[in-house]
């Protein structure tokens, strides 16, 4: 059982040596010749031909032929070549042996990192999938999560379009209701504190392995509940020193699926809204008057906007086409340019190996004011100091500057928009940014709720800088090299420090959309340090056909974060930004906040694992981990997390020897327990809220209990998961993949729950409830065409998952306040259901409701009266409307290579779930998305009638907002051209690849037309990348 990364490289080294098998000659008397071709009939050059059991060998020539002298006519020839499946062919006294060799899909030989060790994929007992360097390079990505999107069955990764922000990740769905659902990231054996994957240069990553089922993740015990993502960075390799260069440039534009009403349509819309507010006072939307328009479009407040509307009246008769529509959104967008440069060198001998890289990423956002710059450096050294002692270090340092753009940080309630684009979208299409004299209009359109975004990108800044350094240092003693009696015994110590400093500076100018009228600035700093210290003992032993492996671990982790914050109003002058919040500029009265804080938490773990293999066919893994976490209550800190898994390599069995169409077949079964203590430190302590209250002018310290009730018996959340899996490759490895079925039960669910406020508290953390989750993950690779020049491969990943709540705090009772329902998935939509809108012909029906207090009229949204009592009430008529978690997540990559060209297309989709779009309030004070709304000329509309609101819009408009959210998106299309060694022979370049990629070219289908459910919003970036990879 080979486990360590160092060992893993040794394996590779040995196999490398095997390839260049040393020839030697003996007395031979049976000459044999032959020709070796691949499946397509192409002659294979350089195939090693060896007489089994001897050192007699040769290689094939350019024509694929060989000639060798065998000791006898009953000898067996062994054919091997890199990338092909080795074959053994008996000579059977024939002088000519022609052989066809199949391309090896060497997936089964891939090394898979399983946590505190690594094994060949063929020996894995748990559900582990991953991607390698090739997958990462196949798409231009700025972080590792992007590279995994859609490639790993069972892993759902969302997209984030803001430069420097990573998407969300869920492995096998959501189990915990309110505790964190993000997985644990382990980089080169060291678990990261929180997140951090965005600080790793994807070009430095060799493999990413995702441990999905509990038999695999239980090895990380308390932290494995949401899956484990293991990142292995590139290491130096013994042998040739190589230099790699990657360059790419991406140009992106912001695309918006959501069309807004243009000036003319919006004007008509608002007129109808006033009409429906009071038909007696206001004219119909299609019968406008100048006087009414002046009043409802605030002509006196913004004469410039009115001048534009007045164009429509220039002929005396309304002509909306004369009104110009201002492109506010175009004003704040730009072409985003991403430049990516990576250089890496690696090399070494069998004594020392080293790898170093430098990466530079400069990403300008598609919205003005947003950008992300990142510098990464990675360096590692592995030294075999003596035969028995090796050590190594691996350090990753990254420094990034994110210009967040207009943000909510530091914003007042004037605007609730989350970005400059949203601020721009909220502006009236008929309003203009500057008046005729060229002055910037403060509130275009005259409504104080909407402020001008012109120049906004210079008026609000939110700059976030992060310096993060993490690394791993290890030292390993191989006692077997000290004394043969100790063969198989190793001791290893890992130390993984993880350090980050974060600084967030915000500045909001007095004229910014998000300002309260005075300038403001804030400065937040945080320093985090954590370390993990592992002691590991490995012992491997083979006795006959029995292979044993033992792993023992003792580990401790400590996190410390200290933070400080200051914010103030009335910045003396803008160029100071957040850099002069000092006594000499800011009077005490202008300070709006200042704080410092300290958070500490600790984890301690012990683990033992036994691996047992019999006859290289039957594999067994048993592990037990005991974890303690400081945030849990006294007496509840420790818990056990056992796991076991078995695997059976069916294809190794004798009865399978003749089933030649099956190349690999392995059955796996695993069960394990994982935990989750992902609650904030001090949650069990009931910290009181301190404050100051002024008795007239005497500022007096006071305190009140937190509104979150402290729970003194908070313990571990535990998930028990069962997994059955099959790994297969058949038909000459033309079809390969794995299928996993899993079922998990989570008990003692850690959750923050609302409680009746009569207790004096609003929420508490508690170990209550139980959820069950089941699903299927399928990864499938098919080689559809394989011929001399043309190869077509399809990679598909399909995941299905379904979760439900089994019980809650008080048995099988629904918890409506937290929208948790027994036997329903986590995250359902609960409320009144919709049945379209009321029509004139429904008058008999809605009048019945109106006699019971409703105020329905034609054009109103129509809720469903579940109990049929002609009343809509919260107790009887609310129902579960749908599930917000996708049942199906699918990803498919088709790659076609023809000669030196490679073309691929990547599809990604989420299916069968619902999204609450919120409906359309249609109060007509603000702008409106283009919709089909009810009016006298459009009675069969999708949405209700608009109602300019001074008290109430349509009371049930939200019922029209629940939509099926399924979509399948084309994420990426790429075309590459590579030059191999032959063509580059005369240059120093050993490998060269140029590529063009298009990101987000479009949707195959989307049930919600105006949203991109991949990013859960209307806007996304579409871009084109040109890149170059070169190796020297």
């Amino acid at each position: 059982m080979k486990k360590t990364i160092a060992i893993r490289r040794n394996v590779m080294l040995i196999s490398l040596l095997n390839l260049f098998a040393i020839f030697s000659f003996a007395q031979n008397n049976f000459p044999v010749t032959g020709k070796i071709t691949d499946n397509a009939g192409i002659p294979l050059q350089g195939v090693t031909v060896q007489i089994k059991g001897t050192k007699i060998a040769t290689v094939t020539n350019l024509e694929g032929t060989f000639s060798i002298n065998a000791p006898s006519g009953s000898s067996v020839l062994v054919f091997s070549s890199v990338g092909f499946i080795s074959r053994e062919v008996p000579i059977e006294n024939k002088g000519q042996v022609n052989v066809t060799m199949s391309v090896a899909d060497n997936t089964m030989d891939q090394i898979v990192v399983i946590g505190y060790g690594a094994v060949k994929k063929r020996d894995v007992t748990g559900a582990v999938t991953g991607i390698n360097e090739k997958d990462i390079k196949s798409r231009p990505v700025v972080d590792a999560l992007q590279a995994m999107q859609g490639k790993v069955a069972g892993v759902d990764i969302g997209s984030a379009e803001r430069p420097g922000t990573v998407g969300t990740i869920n492995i096998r769905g959501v189990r915990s209701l309110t505790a964190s659902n993000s997985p644990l990231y382990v980089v080169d054996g060291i678990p990261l504190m929180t997140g951090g994957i965005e600080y790793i240069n994807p070009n430095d990553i060799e493999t990413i392995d995702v441990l999905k089922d509990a038999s695999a993740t239980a090895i990380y015990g308390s932290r494995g509940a949401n899956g484990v993502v293991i990142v292995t960075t590139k290491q130096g390799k013994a042998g040739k020193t190589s230099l790699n260069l990657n360059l790419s440039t991406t140009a992106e534009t912001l695309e918006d699926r959501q069309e807004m009403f243009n000036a003319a349509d919006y004007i008509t819309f608002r007129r109808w809204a006033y009409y429906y507010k009071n038909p007696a006072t206001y004219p119909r939307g299609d019968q406008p008057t100048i006087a009414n328009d002046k009043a409802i479009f605030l002509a006196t407040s913004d004469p410039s906007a009115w001048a534009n509307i007045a164009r429509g009246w220039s002929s005396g008769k309304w002509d909306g086409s004369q009104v110009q529509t201002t492109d506010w959104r175009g004003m704040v967008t730009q072409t985003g340019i991403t430049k990516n440069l990576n250089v890496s060198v690696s090399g070494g001998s069998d004594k020392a190996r080293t790898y170093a890289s430098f990466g530079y990423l400069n990403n300008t956002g598609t919205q003005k004011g947003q950008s992300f710059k990142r510098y990464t450096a990675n360096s590692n050294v592995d030294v075999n100091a003596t035969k028995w002692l090796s050590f190594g270090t691996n350090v990753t340092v990254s420094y990034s500057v994110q210009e967040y753009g207009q943000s909510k940080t530091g914003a007042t309630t004037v605007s609730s928009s989350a970005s400059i684009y949203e601020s721009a979208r909220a502006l009236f299409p008929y309003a203009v940014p500057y008046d005729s004299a060229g002055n910037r209009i403060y509130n275009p359109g005259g409504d104080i709720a909407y402020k001008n975004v012109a120049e906004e990108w210079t008026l609000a800044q939110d700059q976030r800088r992060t310096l993060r350094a993490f690394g791993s240092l290890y030292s390993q003693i191989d006692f077997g090299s000290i004394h043969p009696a100790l063969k198989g015994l190793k001791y290893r110590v890992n130390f993984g420090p993880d350090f980050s400093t974060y600084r967030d500076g915000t500045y909001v100018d007095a004229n910014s959309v998000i300002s309260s009228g005075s300038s403001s600035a804030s400065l937040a700093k945080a320093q985090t340090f954590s370390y993990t210290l592992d002691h590991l003992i490995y012992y491997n032993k083979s006795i006959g056909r029995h292979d044993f492996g033992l792993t023992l671990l003792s580990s401790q982790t400590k996190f410390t974060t200290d933070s400080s914050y200051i914010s103030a109003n009335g910045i003396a002058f803008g160029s100071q930004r957040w850099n002069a919040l000092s006594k000499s500029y800011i009077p005490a009265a202008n300070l709006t906040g200042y704080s410092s804080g300290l958070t500490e938490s600790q984890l301690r773990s012990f683990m033992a694992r036994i691996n047992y293999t019999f006859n290289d066919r039957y594999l067994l893994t048993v592990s037990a981990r005991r974890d303690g976490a400081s945030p849990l209550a006294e007496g509840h800190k420790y818990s056990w997390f056992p796991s076991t898994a078995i695997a059976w390599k069916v294809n190794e069995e004798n009865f399978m020897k003749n089933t030649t169409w099956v190349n690999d077949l392995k059955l796996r079964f695993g069960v394990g327990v994982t935990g989750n203590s992902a609650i904030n430190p001090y949650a069990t302590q009931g910290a009181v809220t301190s404050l100051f209250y002024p008795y007239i002018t005497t500022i007096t310290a006071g305190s009140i209990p937190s509104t979150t009730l402290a729970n003194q018996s908070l313990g571990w959340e535990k998930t028990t998961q069962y997994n059955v899996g099959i790994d297969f490759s058949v038909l000459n490895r033309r079809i390969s993949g794995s299928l996993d079925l899993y079922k998990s039960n989570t008990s003692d669910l850690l959750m923050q729950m609302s409680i009746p406020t009569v207790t004096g508290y609003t929420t508490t953390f508690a170990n209550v409830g139980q959820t069950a989750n089941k699903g299927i993950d399928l990864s499938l690779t098919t080689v559809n065409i394989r011929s001399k020049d043309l190869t077509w491969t399809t990679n598909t990943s399909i995941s299905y998952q379904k979760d439900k709540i089994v019980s809650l705090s008080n048995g099988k009772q629904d918890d409506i306040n937290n929208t948790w329902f027994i036997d329903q998935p986590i995250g359902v939509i609960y409320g009144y259901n919709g049945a379209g809108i009321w029509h004139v012909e429904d008058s008999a029906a809605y009048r019945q409701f109106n006699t019971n207090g409703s105020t329905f009229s034609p054009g109103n949204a129509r809720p469903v009266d579940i109990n049929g009592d002609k009343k809509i009430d919260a107790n009887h008529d609310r129902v579960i409307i749908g599930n917000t978690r996708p049942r199906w997540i699918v990803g498919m990559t088709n790659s076609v290579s023809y000669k030196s060209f490679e073309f691929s297309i990547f599809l990604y989709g989420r299916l069968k779930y619902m999204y609450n779009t919120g409906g359309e309030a249609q109060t007509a004070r603000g702008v409106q998305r283009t919709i089909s709304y009810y009016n006298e000329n459009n009675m069969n509309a999708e949405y209700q009638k608009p109602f300019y609101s001074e008290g109430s819009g349509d009371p049930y408009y939200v019922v029209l907002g629940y939509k099926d959210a399924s979509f399948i998106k084309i994420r990426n299309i790429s075309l590459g051209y590579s030059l191999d060694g032959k063509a580059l022979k005369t240059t120093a370049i050993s490998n060269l690849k140029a590529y063009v990629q298009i990101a987000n070219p479009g949707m195959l289908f989307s049930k919600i037309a105006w949203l991109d459910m991949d990013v859960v919003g209307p806007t996304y970036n579409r871009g084109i990348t040109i890149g170059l990879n070169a190796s020297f």
Partner: protein
Amino acid sequence: MNIIKLIVNISFFSGLILMASCKKDFLKEELTTARGMEFFKTDAGIQSLATGTYYQVFNTPFSAEWSYCTANYGVDEFSVGGDPSNGVWNNYDAGFKSIVTVNNSNTQTANAQWDNLYTGIGDANLLIQNATASVSTADAIKKIALGEGYFFRAYCYLRLVSQYGAVPLKTVPGTGVELEFTRATPEAICKQIIDDFKQAYDLLPNTGAPAKITKDAVAHYLAKAYLYRASEINDSWNSATKAADLAAIIPLCDEVISRHPLTANFADLWKYTGPDGANEKLSELILSAQFTADVSTNGTNQQHLYYTSRYDDLPQMQRDVTGDRPFSRLRTNYYMFRIYDLENDSRFWKSFRTKSRLNKSSGSYYVNGDLGIMYIINQPGDNRFASYKLNDVVVYSKTNKTIPNAYIAFPAGVTTDGAMLADVRYPSLSKHLDGSRIALNETRGLRDMNLARSAETYLIAAEAKIRLAKSGTGSYTDALPYINAVRTRAQFTSGEDRAGYYDGGGALGASTSGQSPTMNSFIAENSYYESNNIAVTTAASASLAITDINSLPAGDEYVISRLGLGSVYDRMLALVLDERSRELCGEYKRWEDLSRTKTLLSRVQTFNAQASPNIRSYHVLRPIPQTYLDGIQLNGKALTADEKQAQQNQGY
């Protein structure tokens, strides 16, 4: 053997490293930056908790919109201004249920007030428990902190019962997740309130008003609690306590009044020039929620935002600090224009902003400093003005220039209420305006909010006298001295400039905004003369004192006739309710007064045009929040739909 030895050695070696690298209490969690709940068991903690509860109970409501939603919306005095965010609370429409239909992010949920009050009760319960358990003999713990605890609890329950009727009664601190609750009867809650107030009354000293809860503050609220119990809404069960309650009110009120004399000039109450200024320390004030400039204090008073009419979007006008940020939530109803003797009662002119200074001149005619906006609050029959809105027509006598924006309550020929309702403009209640804020859009206000002042104590006593007269004790005229004391103070005094005006917008001097005074929209005058159309006078007003209960002031007779009231009691109750409007409008009391006296339906139907089509008799109580009904259990089971309905107030 060798192997075993080595393994033992290695284990020992690695064990050593482990021992060296970790302490025994590695997993101990130490909270070093905050105090835990144990703190409240110490004497310092008890006092700290008392101070914290002042913040929780008095301050937090004023940083939210539900305060006016539950007290000043849906009544005769106010309706929805230009912004409908919380219109559902005024209009009693289909969206006003146990789940309030959310109009936008500012819409207040049905449970906002409920949750806030129970949080206050939780703090009070903790305070009472810990102060009771303390072995200290110090007055600060055993009398003051304990007394404050009883007061806070009773204060919150009085609000709860006034809003919701029957509510769950919890008198011990929560220690775990409790789900089994039922609603106690108003009778049981009232008994608890009165018992608590009595305890507080016995324990508390009489120093520190209005910042501290004094014996007088308790007396005021105890009188209020008695009055609540004796009011119409409780008539089905209060007969046993009514007579004694009413009798107990008078001495309590007399006692409070004797120590809290009315301020001579009504305007002085609102003469806010900066945080903690003279107007916040007047002897008339019994209890105030405290706010101040120091940013380390947690409270932010946001009520200055809600009453102001839009002024900044009118021609020649822009937003500034002195005009405040016009959220335009509460519009002054015509009812308020009709109930005053506008010529002799100064209170209207001292409570509402009727003029704004021009602050964004454009063109050559107007300059900053001219009159920019004027509201003329005239009476039916005044035929001077052609339309409710006149731009550049009405001439300002001081400059002889026209006024860009003039609004008239009763244009020529209009004798019914409502001409000005065609637009979102109205004279704004100015009691809460705050010009001391640091920027024109700043929401954090610094003014204290008065919770109780002796003018209300007078009117509580007056109402008790009226109720006593109804039950045969004393006569209705016994109420008049109490009412007249308040009314007399409202008269213009001799030499007083009747057009003189001040509101908190004028506190720019205390603001750090750096706004130039030339940008002010605040102007120190009102439209008294333009509205009343009388010659300038500095004589004292005619007396406002009422001498004959059969001939009430014209405004009251107007209300009485609109409401169709006949009996002496109904007339007198209408008088005291009108007087409360004149004196206390916008001071977060109205809805509970109308609900308590069961006059809500008729007054809203008559005077609140927006709510009148929708209000029903069941609206006299608020809907029990759905979050409460959904969260509780009965015998270990969540409530069925019908059980929830049974726990809900009738009609919802």
